C-alpha cells in the first residue's frame, strides 16, 4: 500500500470506523490515533519527497511534490492538535448538554473525513480530482459548522454551503477550461488531466483559455479560500463552528483552497510566461488585507475578530505569493505553517473562554489572566506570534514578504502592506489587552479548563517557538523547494 | 594657567566694596528725585554690619537648603564678578568661563534663593520664588539673544575677547545692532535687578513684592550675605552692560596707572548707568505681573532685530 494512499485512507477509514463504533470512549481515541498516524506518514513523506523530488502512486493518480508535502505536514499537525483538543472540549459540551450524543458522533465521523478530503486535495494529481476533493472538504465541514444547531450556526452553515458551492461551480468552470486547453493540443483520444502532464505541456496550452480559466478559478477557489470580496461567509462560519472545527477551518482549510488556486496560478504563469496570475493574486491579497482592517478595529466578538484576522493573513500570504520573488515566496510558504499553528491555538483559547465564561462578547470579557491563567498566557503568546512580533516566526515571514516587495521595487504595495499590518495590530492589541489584562469583570460560570484543552495549545505554541528560531535542515530544504516550485522553477 | 593674582584680589575687593555703594547711591538719588532726603549713600554698609551682628531666627520648618542658600548666592555672585572684565580688559578668571558661565552662575544663585523661598512653608516665599523664576525665565532669552549679538560680532563668548574686539578701531556705538541690543539688555537689567517697572525693591506689600518675598524669613547674618550678594549681582550686571557696550578705558595691560584710569572710567560709566536706572524707576509705575512679559518680549524683539540688523549690515 503506497504512502500517499495511506495518507488518505487512514483518516477516511477512521471516519467510517467512528460510524460503526458504539462506545463513546473510543471515538476521541480513534480521532487522535488517525491524525497522529497521518503526522507520522507526513514526516515519512517529507523524507521521500526530499529524496525523490516527486512521489507518485496509483500510476500517477496521486502525487506529492515539496509543496504538497509541506501542506500535508501543516494539515496533520493542526488536525492532530484539534483532535487532542476536542477530547476535553466535547466532554464538557456533553456534560452540560450543549451537544447531543448524536451530534457528538457526527463530529467524530465528519472530522476525519474532512481531514481525508483535505489530504486528497493536496495529494491529487488530477485537477478535476482536486476540484471535487475541495468540494468534499466543504461538504464534510458544513455540517460541523452547523453542529450546535443554533439559529446562528444554521445560518452560518447555510451561507457557507451556498457561497461555497457557488464558488466551486465557478471553479469547476475554470477546471473545465483548463481541460479544454489540454484537449486542444493532444492527439490521443482521452487526454491526461494530470498536473504533471499539464506542466509538461504548459507551453503549448492556449493562453486565452487559460486566462479565462484562471479568472474563474480565482473567483471560485478564492471564495473557498476567503479572499475579499468573496470572504463574507468566513467570519460567520468560523465563529459559529465548534472550536476544534474553527481551528481546522481557519488553520488549514482556507489554505487548502489557496493551494488549489496556487496550482492554477503556477500553470497559468508557466503557460503565459507573464506575471498575469501573480498580479491578480497580489491585488486580491491587498484587497483582503484592507477589507479585514476596519472589521478588526471595531469588532465585538472574539471569534469573529480572529476570523477576520485570518482573512487578513490569507491576504498576506497572497501578497507574498503574488510578489513572486524568492524571499517573499519563502516567507509566504512559511507563513502558511506559522499561521496555521497560531490561529488554531487562538481558536482553542476562544473555545476555552466560551466554555468558561459562556460568552465571546469582547466588551463583557476582561481580566482573563486572573480567571484562567494557563489559557490566557498561551493566548497571549499566540497573539504575540500572530501580531508579527519577534521572537516568533511571523515577524520573519512578514518581514520577508515586505522586504521581497521592496526588493522587487514594489514600493506602493509594501507601504499598503505595512499600513494594513500596523492598523490591524493596533486593533488587535487594544482588544486583547482589554481581554486579558485588568481586573476580571465577571465570575467564571463554566467548569475549569481540562488538561487536554491546554495541552493542545501548549503543544502548538511550543512547536511554534521551536520552529521560529530553528528550522530543521530537511524542513528548510523542503520549504526552499516549495518556494522554488511556486516561483516557477520545477 | 597663569592667574594675575593682584588683579584677582583687587577685583574681588572692588566687587565687595563697590556693590553696596552702588545700591546706596541709587536709593539716595531716587529719593532726591522724589524730593525726599533719603538714606545716606553709605547706608547699605551700616545695614550689612548691623545684620551681621544681629541674632538669627530660622524657621522651624526650614531645612538645610535654607542655610546653604546665602553662601551659594554670595559666592556665585562674587565668582560671576570675577569672570567679568571690570577694570582691566583681561578678566581675572576669564579662562574659567565667558558670558555663558556668568549667566549660569547667577542662575544657580537664583535657583537656590527660590528654593529657600519655598523652604519655610510660608505662602509669601512660594509666591516670591514662583514670580522670580517666571520673570527670569521670560527675561533669559532676551538677555541671551542680546549677548549673542555682541558675542557673534566678536566671534567669542569670552567676555575679555568681546571687550577687546569692540575696543578695536572699527568699533562705533551707533551701530544700530548694538544700540538695539543695548536697549534690550537694559530692560533685562531692570528685570534681573528687581527694579521698577518689573519689581519694586522698596515695597513689602504681599501682592506686589517679588524678590523681597523670598527673603522674608531671612534675618541676621544670612540676610546680610543675601543682601550683599544681590548687590554684587547688580553691580556685575551693570558693569557687564557698561563694559561690553562701552569698552572705553578698560586697561589693556595692568599697570597701577592704567588700573586707576580704568577705575575712573568704570566709576563714570556706572554713575551714568545708575542715573539712567534711577530716571527710569522714578518716571515709571510698576507694571502688573502679567504685563511684565509684554515688556520682556519687547526686549526679546529688540534683541532679535539687533541680530537681524547685524545680519543685514555685515
Amino acid at each position, binding site marked *: 500500500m503506497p504512502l500517499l494512499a495511506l495518507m488518505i485512507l487512514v483518516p477516511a477509514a477512521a471516519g467510517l470506523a467512528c460510524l460503526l463504533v458504539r462506545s463513546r470512549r473510543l471515538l476521541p481515541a480513534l480521532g487522535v490515533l488517525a491524525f497522529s498516524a497521518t503526522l507520522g506518514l507526513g514526516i515519512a513523506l517529507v523524507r521521500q519527497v526530499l529524496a525523490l523530488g516527486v512521489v507518485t502512486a496509483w500510476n500517477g493518480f496521486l502525487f506529492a511534490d515539496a509543496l504538497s508535502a509541506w501542506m500535508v505536514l501543516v494539515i496533520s499537525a493542526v488536525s492532530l492538535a484539534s483532535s487532542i483538543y476536542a477530547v476535553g472540549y466535547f466532554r464538557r459540551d456533553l456534560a452540560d448538554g450543549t451537544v447531543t450524543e448524536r451530534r457528538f458522533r457526527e463530529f467524530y465521523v465528519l472530522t476525519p473525513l474532512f481531514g481525508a478530503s483535505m489530504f486528497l486535495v493536496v495529494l491529487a494529481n488530477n485537477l478535476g480530482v482536486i476540484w*471535487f476533493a475541495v468540494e468534499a472538504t466543504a*461538504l464534510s465541514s458544513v455540517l460541523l459548522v452547523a453542529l450546535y444547531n443554533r439559529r446562528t450556526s444554521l445560518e452560518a452553515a447555510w451561507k457557507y454551503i451556498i457561497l461555497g458551492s457557488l464558488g466551486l461551480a465557478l471553479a469547476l468552470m475554470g477546471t473545465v477550461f483548463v481541460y479544454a486547453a489540454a484537449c486542444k493540443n493532444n492527439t490521443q483520444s482521452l487526454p491526461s488531466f494530470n498536473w504533471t502532464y499539464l506542466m509538461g505541456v504548459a507551453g503549448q496550452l492556449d493562453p486565452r483559455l487559460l486566462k479565462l480559466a484562471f479568472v474563474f478559478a480565482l473567483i471560485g477557489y478564492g471564495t473557498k479560500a476567503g479572499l475579499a470580496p468573496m470572504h463574507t461567509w468566513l467570519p460567520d462560519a468560523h465563529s459559529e463552528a465548534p472550536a476544534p472545527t474553527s481551528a481546522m477551518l481557519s488553520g488549514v482549510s482556507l489554505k487548502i483552497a489557496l493551494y488549489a488556486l496556487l496550482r492554477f496560478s503556477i500553470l497559468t504563469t508557466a503557460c503565459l510566461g507573464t506575471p498575469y496570475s501573480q498580479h491578480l493574486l497580489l491585488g486580491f491579497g491587498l484587497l483582503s488585507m484592507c477589507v479585514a482592517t476596519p472589521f478588526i478595529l471595531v469588532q465585538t466578538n472574539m471569534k469573529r475578530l480572529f476570523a477576520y484576522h485570518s482573512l487578513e493573513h490569507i491576504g498576506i500570504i497572497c501578497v507574498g505569493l503574488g510578489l513572486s520573488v524568492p524571499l517573499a515566496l519563502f516567507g509566504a510558504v512559511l507563513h502558511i505553517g506559522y499561521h496555521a499553528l497560531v490561529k488554531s491555538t487562538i481558536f482553542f483559547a476562544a473555545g476555552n473562554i466560551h466554555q468558561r465564561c459562556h460568552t465571546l462578547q469582547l466588551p463583557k470579557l476582561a481580566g482573563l489572566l486572573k480567571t484562567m491563567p494557563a489559557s490566557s498566557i498561551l493566548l497571549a503568546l499566540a497573539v504575540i506570534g500572530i501580531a508579527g512580533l519577534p521572537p516568533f516566526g511571523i515577524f520573519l515571514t512578514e518581514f520577508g514578504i515586505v522586504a521581497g516587495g521592496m526588493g522587487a521595487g514594489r514600493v506602493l504595495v509594501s507601504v499598503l502592506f505595512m499600513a494594513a499590518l500596523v492598523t490591524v495590530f493596533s486593533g488587535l492589541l487594544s482588544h486583547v489587552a482589554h481581554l486579558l489584562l485588568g481586573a476580571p469583570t465577571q465570575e467564571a460560570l463554566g467548569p475549569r479548563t481540562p488538561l487536554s484543552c491546554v495541552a493542545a495549545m501548549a503543544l502548538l505554541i511550543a512547536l511554534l517557538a521551536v520552529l521560529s528560531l530553528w528550522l530543521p535542515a530537511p524542513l528548510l530544504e523542503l520549504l526552499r523547494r516549495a518556494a522554488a516550485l511556486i516561483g516557477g522553477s520545477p | 594657567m597663569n592667574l594675575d593674582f593682584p588683579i584677582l584680589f583687587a577685583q574681588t575687593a572692588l566687587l565687595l566694596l563697590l556693590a553696596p555703594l552702588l545700591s546706596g547711591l541709587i536709593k539716595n538719588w531716587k529719593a532726591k528725585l522724589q524730593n525726599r532726603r533719603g538714606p545716606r549713600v553709605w547706608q547699605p554698609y551700616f545695614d550689612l554690619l548691623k545684620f551681621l551682628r544681629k541674632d538669627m531666627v530660622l524657621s522651624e520648618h526650614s531645612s538645610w537648603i535654607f542655610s546653604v542658600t546665602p553662601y551659594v548666592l554670595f559666592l556665585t555672585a562674587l565668582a560671576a564678578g570675577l569672570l567679568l572684565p571690570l577694570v582691566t580688559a583681561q578678566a581675572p578668571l576669564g579662562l574659567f568661563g565667558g558670558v555663558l558661565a556668568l549667566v549660569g552662575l547667577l542662575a544657580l544663585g537664583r535657583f537656590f534663593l527660590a528654593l529657600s523661598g519655598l523652604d519655610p512653608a510660608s505662602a509669601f516665599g512660594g509666591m516670591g520664588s514662583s514670580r522670580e523664576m517666571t520673570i527670569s525665565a521670560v527675561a533669559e532669552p532676551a538677555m541671551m539673544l542680546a549677548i549673542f549679538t555682541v558675542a557673534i560680532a566678536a566671534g567669542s563668548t569670552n567676555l575679555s575677547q568681546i571687550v577687546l574686539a569692540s575696543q578695536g578701531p572699527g568699533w562705533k556705538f551707533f551701530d544700530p545692532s548694538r544700540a538695539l541690543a543695548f536697549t534690550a539688555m537694559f530692560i533685562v537689567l531692570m528685570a534681573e535687578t528687581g527694579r521698577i517697572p518689573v519689581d519694586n525693591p522698596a515695597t513689602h506689600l504681599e501682592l506686589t513684592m517679588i524678590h523681597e518675598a523670598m527673603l522674608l524669613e531671612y534675618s541676621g547674618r544670612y540676610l546680610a550675605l543675601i543682601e550683599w550678594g544681590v548687590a554684587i549681582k547688580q553691580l556685575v550686571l551693570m558693569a557687564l552692560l557698561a563694559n561690553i557696550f562701552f569698552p572705553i578705558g578698560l586697561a589693556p595691560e595692568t599697570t597701577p596707572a592704567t588700573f586707576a584710569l580704568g577705575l575712573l572710567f568704570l566709576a563714570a560709566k556706572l554713575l551714568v548707568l545708575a542715573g539712567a536706572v534711577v530716571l527710569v524707576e522714578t518716571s515709571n509705575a510698576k507694571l502688573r505681573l502679567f504685563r511684565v512679559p509684554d515688556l520682556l518680549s519687547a526686549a526679546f524683539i529688540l534683541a532679535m532685530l539687533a541680530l537681524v540688523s547685524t545680519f543685514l549690515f555685515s
Partner: protein
Amino acid sequence: MNPPTAETASNLITLLASFMLVLQLLMAVQSMLVSNIRLFALQSLLLAGIAAVVGYAYSAWHVYLVALLTFVGKVVFLPWLLERLVRQLKIEQEIRPFVNVPGSMLLCGALTVLAYVVAHPVTSLERLGSNTLAVALALLLTGFFLMINRRKAITQVLALLTMENGVMLAAIALTSYGMPLVVEIGIFFDLVTAVMVLGILVYRIRESFDSMDTSKLNQLKG
C-alpha cells in the same frame, strides 16, 4: 465515423444548447416553484441529450455514461427530491424575486451578451456546435443572477443546479469527450451529496426558523 453525422450532430447540439438557454430565460420569468423545478428537469434532459448526441457522434461509450448519469441524477432524482421537499415542507409556490420580471429579462439579456463577448475569442476552440461555449457561459451567469434574485433557499439551490448545467455543457462543448470518467463521476456524486446536505440544512432551518426565506437569515452581522 462519417462527416454528415458530425455535421448534423454539431447542428443538433447547437439547437439543443440554444433551447437550454431559452429554458433558462423561462425560469427567470416563471414565478411558480414546481414548474421551475420541472423546467430545470427539462433543461437537464436537453443536456443529457447533448451528451448522448456526442456519444453517438464519436461513439465514445463513456459519454453515454455521462448522459445516463445526467439523466438519472438531474432529470429524475434531483427534481423528485426537490419536489418532495417542497411538498413536505409545504413551501408556498409563489416566488417573489427582488427584481421584477421585465427587469430580470433585461439583465439576463445583458448577461447573455456579455457571455458572447467573453466567449468570442475562444469560440474557435469549440469542437462541437457553434457558440455552445457562449451558451454555457450565459447559463452560468444567468444562473448566478437567478441565485441572487431568488429569496427562497430551495430556489437558490435550483439556480445553482442550472449553473452546474452550464458548466457541464461547457465541458462537453469544449472538450468533445467530456471530462475523464473519474472526474465526471466525482462531480456527479459531489452534486448529489451537495443537494442532500442542502436538503438536510433546509430541514433544520425550516425547523428552527419556520420559514424558507433566506433573506431572513441575517443575524450574523459585522
